[in-house]
């Protein structure tokens, strides 16, 4: 298993060694340096991946030594991708992240918690790990909780508790949009709606890709994705 995004890159530090065997850290391929004598014995990049090859290398590399992040090593990425390319990119990430997980999953049930607010928002913690004859990976994220809440409202025909839960998780999920005061209300609603729609689509795409690999995979967050390419 992998931590699909790399929060610690914002501080000058050694990345913490993750104690859970399934979690690994990695740097996006757009801005990374490897020590050659560590990388070459790893048999290079896995050519089955069209995306996520940097994640895959990170998983193997973290066993070899320390990873260090330095935010002063700055690279500016262009944002002038046309919509079609951007969508292709999201889909590629949604599909290949699942495949990287599958490569390192061996028949187990794992539940990860993604932090809800504040600094812990970026942290992912393993909640539960069991050996069962089916591979299942579930990320409990604000987005997932919001969906559970919404389904709860529908299933209970508007039970006040379910509504309260949905409202709370909605607030948590949309908080990063609300917190950005510099954008206008119209743009804010557009962004929030767009983010929700894209997350919903990509959640299903990665879920389907998981099923195709005979694996139960529930995770997707646009704002938790790995680096774009």
């Amino acid at each position, binding site marked *: 298993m992998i931590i699909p*995004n*790399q*929060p610690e*890159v*914002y*501080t*000058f*530090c*050694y990345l*913490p060694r993750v104690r859970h065997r399934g979690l690994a850290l990695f*740097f*996006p*391929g*757009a*801005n*990374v*340096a*490897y*020590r050659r*004598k560590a*990388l070459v014995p790893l048999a*290079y*990049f*896995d*050519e*089955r*991946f*069209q*995306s996520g*090859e940097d994640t895959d290398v990170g998983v193997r590399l973290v066993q070899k*030594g*320390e*990873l*260090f*992040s*330095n*935010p*002063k*090593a*700055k*690279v*500016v*990425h*262009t*944002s*002038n*991708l*046309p*919509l079609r390319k*951007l969508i292709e990119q999201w889909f590629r990430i949604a599909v290949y992240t699942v495949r990287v997980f599958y490569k390192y999953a061996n028949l187990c049930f794992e539940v990860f918690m993604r932090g809800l607010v504040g600094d812990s*928002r*970026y942290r992912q913690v393993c909640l539960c790990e069991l050996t069962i004859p089916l591979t299942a990976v579930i990320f409990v994220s604000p987005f997932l909780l919001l969906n559970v809440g919404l389904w709860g409202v529908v299933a209970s025909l508007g039970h006040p508790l379910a509504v309260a839960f949905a409202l709370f998780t909605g607030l948590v999920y949309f908080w*990063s*949009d609300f*917190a950005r005061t510099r954008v206008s209300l119209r743009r804010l609603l557009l*962004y929030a709606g*767009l983010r929700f729609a894209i997350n919903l689509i990509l959640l299903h795409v990665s879920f389907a890709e998981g099923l195709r690999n005979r694996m139960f995979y529930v995770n997707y967050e646009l*704002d938790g994705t790995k*680096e774009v*390419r």
Partner: protein
Amino acid sequence: MNLSLAVRVLGAWRCAEGGELVDSERAVRTIQESVAAGRVEEAGLQLIRFLKLGTAEGAALRCSVLIVTRNRCELLDRTLSSLRRQRRAPDEVVVVDNASTDTTAETVVRHTSSWPIVRRVEEEWLGIACARNRTLLESSERSDVVAFIDDDCVADSEWLYQLLLPLRYDEEVVSAGGYVSFSTEDATPWGRFYSDQREALVP
């Protein structure tokens, strides 16, 4: 136990030296957490690492910068130009051209003519992973570090210098990574939406 003091002094000293500042707050916190959790050995190791990072002068490393590109000649031109402005110049730049159909070849040749360390290699087989492997195979065996940058990125003039710092100072570091931000100048609305989502995550 005056670990934190030692680390703070070190941080301040490095700061006064005018250069490579250790994030001492962070170092202190990491070490204190280890001490609090009873992992004294680990705390000691962490301290030694931070000290080494701040003081020891590492060996000079040979560095190859590797780029994979496909049909993005204008963006690649900007990337290569930014590499020429580096504080720490790369020893070699390898551009793997993944079956481009535009003027990528001419762009690279133009750079090569005035900057001979740039090389272009053609790779017909499509795919980011095998193109990256090709860059590794083509890069000089003598390079100690390989740095990857994407063809649609522009490097800060300090980029390579900063990226190599941890690798220079600590033998145990196998990989170093930096910060990727998004340009807002030529952004499409969609690109801006996506980069906004990412920037919102920066603490």
